[in-house]
């Protein structure tokens, strides 16, 4: 059954803006308006502060763990216009790289699928999206998409490396040649899809449905099925689920998941891509699941502060 396995008191001195566990679910990284990033060891229900990373000079908005095949790496982005990539070496966390190429608050960071190497997308309020690729030896290769979203970019999320279209003309027996793609959301109320072609990032699709700033986008993880799914949420309180069955990735259809009363800040997909966690200004967390007939239903309400997911019995048993 659903149960709270850990409650971490972060001792941040100001409000928390993001919390994320690493690949194995053993460590928790949090970031806050107090300008710090903290890492906790949360194995077996414990909470040991592993590191208190100081380096940002403004509130830290988001953190992102890289795939562990590249080591223990965490990226953080802040109001201070910086992106800092931290790395654990010999049990101590150090700044691995600091990116200062944005001219306004950096609102979102997201690591690409490990198949693409160590690549980080950053979305900033200056409207640009930067792509930082580690080319080994502490060298970072930077590509910038200027003016990706007029007024500002609020969120970025990578597409899984499993490309549905690959079924068609991928020779077997060798590594498929995945196309790098990601989705972004911004203050122009748009959700945009980007893909890399011959080393250049190009706008692939522009999805319009929201009537206010798009606050978060989430590309659902793929389990190998040909449908691509993206969730987007906005200041207008709406959450849309975008799907694309077309292997060329050109036709996206939007489905309204729900209209909330307040801004929706965050969407997050479960690892199997069938449950969506939605959270926003109303201080509540809800979980949504698509039923067999394609309707999205709220399967639980994580009550604020109570730490309980209710009304989910039966869902688990139906399988």
């Amino acid at each position: 059954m659903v149960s709270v396995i850990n409650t971490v008191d972060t001792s941040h001195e100001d409000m928390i803006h993001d919390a994320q566990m690493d690949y194995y679910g053993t460590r928790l990284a949090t970031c806050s308006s107090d300008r710090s990033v903290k890492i906790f060891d949360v194995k077996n229900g414990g909470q040991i502060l592993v590191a208190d990373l100081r380096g940002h000079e403004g509130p830290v908005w988001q953190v992102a763990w890289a795939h562990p095949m590249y080591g223990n790496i965490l990226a953080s982005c802040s109001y201070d216009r910086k992106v800092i990539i931290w790395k654990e070496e010999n049990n101590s966390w150090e700044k691995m790289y600091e990116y200062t190429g944005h001219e306004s608050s950096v609102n979102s960071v997201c690591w690409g699928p490990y198949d693409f190497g160590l690549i980080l997308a950053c979305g900033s309020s200056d409207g640009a999206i930067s792509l930082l690729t580690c080319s080994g030896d502490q060298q970072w290769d930077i590509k910038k998409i200027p003016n990706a979203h007029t007024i500002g970019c609020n969120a970025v999320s990578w597409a899984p490396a499993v490309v549905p279209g690959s079924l068609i003309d991928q020779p077997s027996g060798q590594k498929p040649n995945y196309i790098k793609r990601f989705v972004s959301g911004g203050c122009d109320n748009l959700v945009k899809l980007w893909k890399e072609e011959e080393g250049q990032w190009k706008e692939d699709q522009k999805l319009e449905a929201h009537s206010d700033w798009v606050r978060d986008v989430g590309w659902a993880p793929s389990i190998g099925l040909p449908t691509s799914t993206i969730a987007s949420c906005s200041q207008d309180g709406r959450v849309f689920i975008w799907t694309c069955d077309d292997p060329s990735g050109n036709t996206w259809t939007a489905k309204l998941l729900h209209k909330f009363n307040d801004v929706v800040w965050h969407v997050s997909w479960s690892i199997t891509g069938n449950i969506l966690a939605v959270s926003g200004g109303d201080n509540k967390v809800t979980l949504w699941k698509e039923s067999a007939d394609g309707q999205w239903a709220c399967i639980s309400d994580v009550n604020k502060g109570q730490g309980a997911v209710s009304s989910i019995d039966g869902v688990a048993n139906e399988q």
Partner: protein
Amino acid sequence: MAARWSSENVVVEFRDAQATAMSVDCLGQHAVLSGRRFLLLVNLDTPSEAPRKMGRQSKWDVGTVQWNPHKTESHVFAASSNQRVDLYSWRDGGGEVQTSLQGHTRVISDLDWSCFEPEYLVTSSVDTYIYIWDTRDTRKPTVALSAVAGASQVKWNRRNQYLLASSHDGDVRIWDRRKPNTAVEYVAAHLSKIHGLDWHPDNEYILATSSQDNSVRFWDFRQPRKYLNILSCQVPVWKARYTPFSNGLVTVMVPQLRRENSLLLWSCQDLNSPVHAFVGHDDVVLEFQWRPQKEGSKDYQLVTWSRDQTLRIWKVDNQLQKLCANNLVEDMMERMSLTTESEKILPSLDQEVATPTSVLSAAELQADQDGVVTSTKRHEPTALPQTLQQEFSLVNLQIRNVNVEMDAVNRSCVVSAVFGTNQVRLVVKFPAHYPNNAAPSFQFVSPTTIPPPMRTKIQKILTDTSLQKVKRNQNCLEPCVRQLVSCLTQEDGSDVNPYLLTNPVAPALPAFPRVTNTYGSYQDANIPFPRTSGARFCGTGCLVYFTRPITMHRSVPTTEPTPRSLSALSAYHSGVLTPLKMRTESQSTLRLYSGSPTRTDKDHVSISSFYYKERKPLQSRLRRWSVQTVHDCPKSRRFKTKREGADCANRPIKLAGKVIIQEISCLLPVHKALGEAYILNVNDIQDTCQKNAAAALLVGRRDLAKVWALSSASTSLDLSPDSEFDPDTDTPWARHPFGRHLLETLLAHYSQMSDVQTLAMLCSVFRTTQGSPQDCFSLYGQHVPLRSTQVPLHHSRYPSYTSGSVTSGSCSSTSDSITTTTWNIGRDPDHIPPWGESSPDDYRYPNQVYADPREREKELHDMNKKLLDPANTLQFDDFKKCYGEILHRWGLKEKRAEVLKFASSPPEPHKGIEFGVYCCHCRSQVRGTQCAVCKRFTFQCVICHVAVRGSSNFCLSCGHGGHTSHMMEWFRTQDECPSGCGCRCLLQSTF
């Protein structure tokens, strides 16, 4: 806002300093804080270290202190004390008074070192004399300037070594020290007392004066009658000084209320609103100075000392500097014209010069001061919105009692406001060219209740405000509405803003936007309002979420949606919405963390400001107690009994909630228990299926138990495809409805459930029924061209499997047709696909040329024999890859490896270091034990002289080695190479 959060680097409290003056030395190493009893020397590199103290016996406070600005004399500083100036020398961590300059007969008001000659010091006094001292002869001043009136400030010109300026009440006098008898120029600068005077760092004729009359004025002393520009404030200005980088100005206001602190950074180009507010000090800022830039650093640091007994160091980075110099063309025009010697009237600073950019070559631009601003940057000066619609979407008007309805289509908006008894409805219409030098029109409509004279006055103010903005092609809606609010609040009752009207010298100027109203919002308007709650799926079965603590309430009614952008917070700071709240907390945090420079007190406006419960504007002390009684009641009792309780009682309300990790794996279709229990035994599929069925039962997945039972049945050896099987004689099992079709139905079902675990396991198990994985590789390797062309599109969708109904009848007839039809490659539209559920149109072999039709037939038959449609192999691989990832996250690496073995595309080859050898027979390069050239074993064991095939070890130094077992045995007792080469292998390399 930008700066408010980012710029403060260091806060150090010196409680007992009681210093009234501060100075930073020319090396940027030390700051001296001078109080009545001590002089404190603070090392600015390590400010939190205890400062050095110098005792001082005087009943007078130090009036002014200043380090000598010359490197050679950097250890000297002058401090004025009543009528005397003491020259201190600071060396090797200790200091003493070197000498004293006595001459003035009344208190010294100011002193200044010359920046040209290290020995020259000027002092001004209330005794009406200004003395220039040569410190080599301290008996008497070398030059005495008689001003008749007492001076408050005196400053050397920074470009001309002879010139200096002094202020006398509201006048400024310019002196040439070579002509001591009379001043060179008089400037009747202000109506009331001048508090501050500063020369332009680069232009010898320009200076800025700050005064009690609520303004800063900029002067070219050659035109003493008209100021170049004016910065109007609502409060008297204590000091205004130019920044060391281009075109900035820092001001400190004379605080009217104790809490108010107003250290502001301005751009001389745009004096309507500050570029930045340095917020942090709790009390009057007594002194601010620029720390000389470190080599290689683009950042400047501002050192400030306040009556709150804290020294702060603020970073002013490139971005901020740029903001000060944002209008480069204008700036350069101004500089060029100012530096000309001609006496022509200078363009006033606020005059908009529409200079074609082509006038200035790129080189000129590059040659500008800091080189940061390049020609390309110039065209994107700010992130200011361009169109009306953009302005509307960005405008930040979270003001109580004010409602703005915007209509971008009709280019108009309606502002409704209620203040006390007054009601206002204002229609603003924006012309088509707006904001390009076209101001909007303002019209009051009913039910506006304010009297007509007031309407006219406000309209005039609004028009002025808007004109100022549109002249610069800037948007004006927000400033205008704030202006309106400001006017109405004034009208509403002076008790709201008492200091607005109590000032004896009422400014005769049009009311400019209140400084506090124009805070921040420079770039914050497009920064999204931060998340304060969020949920994320992490790892495999965890949901991590955090919410605002229950103690945090929103200060606006919950019916109002959360603001969209960060600039909403500036309203909280400016006091438009609520008075600055919760200072008490910041003070307690200050106490808790003082002395630790990396910690910052929360004296800035933080996101948390938005969530505090609104409180009545009580006295701060009262407020503190109300906080405690609400939230910390029991603790305040402990406060009396326990000493440690003090911290407890003062602890701020928790701003950070707890992060909760919830186990939600039961919601997921995959099970860790199954991941552990599932087996994949290639050699005994039957057994595998049965055991997996049992495992599924254990976790309560009866459906899976049935699936495994079915799998067991359909993988029965009796049904297994026989390679010798002749396609002519029988239909392969896969063609049976319970064969491939059943399997595909299952896969479709579990796809819909996103049960990648089952999908991957089924794919793996059925893969094994087609031979060992290795065989499959080779098989598919040959099939590359075939597959790449013939896979129909809709194979990629699982739902289509179920739709394409296949009957056994059609299957067998298909098989028959294969045998009977003569192949007509690529031209047989009527041909029924041999293994396809798809339509014939999808199904062509345009490029496939088979020499022997039988070969193709055989291949097709091979395909048909498979329970898993080979066309979807890549998709099956994706299932396995994805499941492999999940197993990896579970820490089940062996299970992962087992599953990935069944993937058709092999994992990436190992890319670590590999050792190669040269064949000992033919000397060719070999990988592995057998030489590809001479086909002999590549190396021999140095001990038994037999070719090594199995495990071997070599010394990386001498290259000798052999069977691992032999080497182990040898080196157990020896440390030299068994070959006798003399190499000490154990030391040279590690086995």
